[in-house]
């Protein structure tokens, strides 16, 4: 079972991101469960959403305590919430930022986890360009597809089109595609480094 935990703030589409991820996984024939951490619904408050993906029925309903994947939609949370809590040693980390892990003050994290699975992507900037609003969720899912290969970009596009109306969907699909390409380039550079 693949367990994904998404951290962000109220208003950034954190819950929608987990839901879209589950739709993408379902589109690929897998079982998926997405649910939010049900805090008070306030813009700007820390929000967590979860997604589980498996090849059989998912019965477990506890919050994800030991994620295989962490997606951080808002880097200002990094030093406020222990987002890395329980992260699997082989886990993936995707952070919405133009800065590197080192520049984000995460040098310690870099040492503890596999460096080729730790990436940052300027998802808010990409979203601003394509969607006109700094809502990074779709771009981050595109980036996650490129980082892990665990879901396809086509499935992500399908999920975006399921959740959003036509025009907004296409703008988000474009954001996901750019983030996907960005991570592909990053990973290529890493492999040559």
């Amino acid at each position, binding site marked *: 079972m693949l367990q994904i935990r998404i951290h962000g703030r109220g208003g950034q589409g954190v819950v929608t991101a987990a839901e879209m991820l589950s739709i993408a996984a379902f589109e690929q024939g897998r079982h998926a469960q997405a649910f939010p951490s049900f805090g008070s619904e306030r813009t700007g408050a820390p929000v967590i959403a979860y997604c589980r993906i498996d090849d059989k029925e998912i019965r477990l309903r506890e*919050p994800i305590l030991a994620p295989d994947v962490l997606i951080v939609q808002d880097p200002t949370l990094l030093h406020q*919430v222990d987002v890395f809590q329980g992260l699997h040693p082989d886990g993936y980390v995707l952070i919405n930022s133009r800065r590197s892990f080192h520049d984000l003050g995460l040098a310690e994290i870099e040492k503890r986890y596999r460096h080729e699975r730790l990436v940052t992507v300027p998802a808010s900037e990409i979203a601003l360009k394509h969607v006109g609003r700094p809502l990074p969720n779709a771009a981050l899912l595109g980036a996650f597809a490129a980082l892990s290969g665990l879901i396809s970009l086509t499935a992500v596009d399908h999920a975006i089109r399921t959740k959003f109306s036509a025009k907004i969907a296409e703008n988000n699909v474009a954001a996901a595609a750019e983030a996907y390409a960005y991570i592909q380039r990053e990973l290529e550079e890493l492999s040559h480094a």
Partner: protein
Amino acid sequence: MLEQMEGSRAVARAVALCRPEVICAYPISPQTHIVEGLGEMVRRGDLVDCEFINVESEFAAMSVAIGASATGARTYTATASQGLLFMAEAVYNASGLGLPIVMTIANRAIGAPINIWNDHSDSMSQRDCGWIQLFAESNQEAADLHIQAFKLAEELSMPVMVCMDGFILTHAYERVDIPAQAEVDAFLPPYEPRQVLDPAEPVSIGAMVGPEAFMEVRYLAHAKQLTALDVIPRISEEFAERFGRASGGLVRGYLTADAETIVVALGSVIGTLKDTIDDLRAEGIRIGVLGIQSFRPFPLAAVRRALQDATNVVVLEKSFSVGLGGVVSNDVRLALSGVQLHGYTVIAGLGGRAITKASLQRTLREAIAGTLQPLTFMDLDWRIVNRQLAREAQMRRSGPIAESLLRDVGPIAAKVI
């Protein structure tokens, strides 16, 4: 067709397939998405011959439901928590009048302190109101139970609550198989009421009944609920034949046949329990879980049959009777009258406290070892409990409890769970 969707959406779709004629509701978390979805379907014309009535309160919602149902309309509403308490008087009237209303309860705690999260306190507060109460384990079962509920309610002329865990189910996306309209039509015949308010043939409904016949009316309601003990499994079997999956029924065991220890539970926690039990089984521990799908009527005989050969019975419940202990466990104990076994009540998940596999494993191991307290509050934070007790012992004006405890807990935003 199999689709990935939110639990609330699945329930809205299932209810729409039942062709309700009147839907009235007042928004309250975590039920809101269900009636929002239905409202949208009515507005768009996807749900025809249905009137969606916005009301000013939950009390009005149930009152309108009573009026609509009495005119012979298939009627649906949904609520949770304080909303259910606010409509309580009308809830009793609906069952007392024998009106087959179907209502979703998106289970949520009751204040004070105010809390929007899941537990079963709301449904349990109405367990004696004369409604049938069914509990869903998953979103698939929640959707299926609504289709069964209309059939059950109308056959018996008795209202049915379908209880599903707020947020944990209502806000969870998972795959749900939504049947085709023709399949539901074949399963659920048009509503043929026993009593109708009709200007052409005037009758009165709701007479005052004095000591001469009140007990008899009550007894008839009880006798009818007891017949539901036969009707519920029959409808569940017919559903399984038509739709190809088991949903509903009275109780459902998982690995209980040879189990020395059986956990009894209601609702979505059964899923987490099944995973926990698989892990314990892998160590050779003979343990299973008994899910209760029908809490009212309470299936005394089925529960007794399932539990009587066990050595340990652990009732894990998201409800709590202050001054006594368990609510569900009280009924389970009645089912086990005269049976010698070790019984435990575990109160868990109140107000949305996460129920984790790790905590369940630890608790169940203690039950097997015989070291578990007869009444246990799983994952209770004794540190803050004891601090408050000390505060109250030290000074008279110790202040409001909830506020003091929040100060002791500290900022919660920094914690992952």
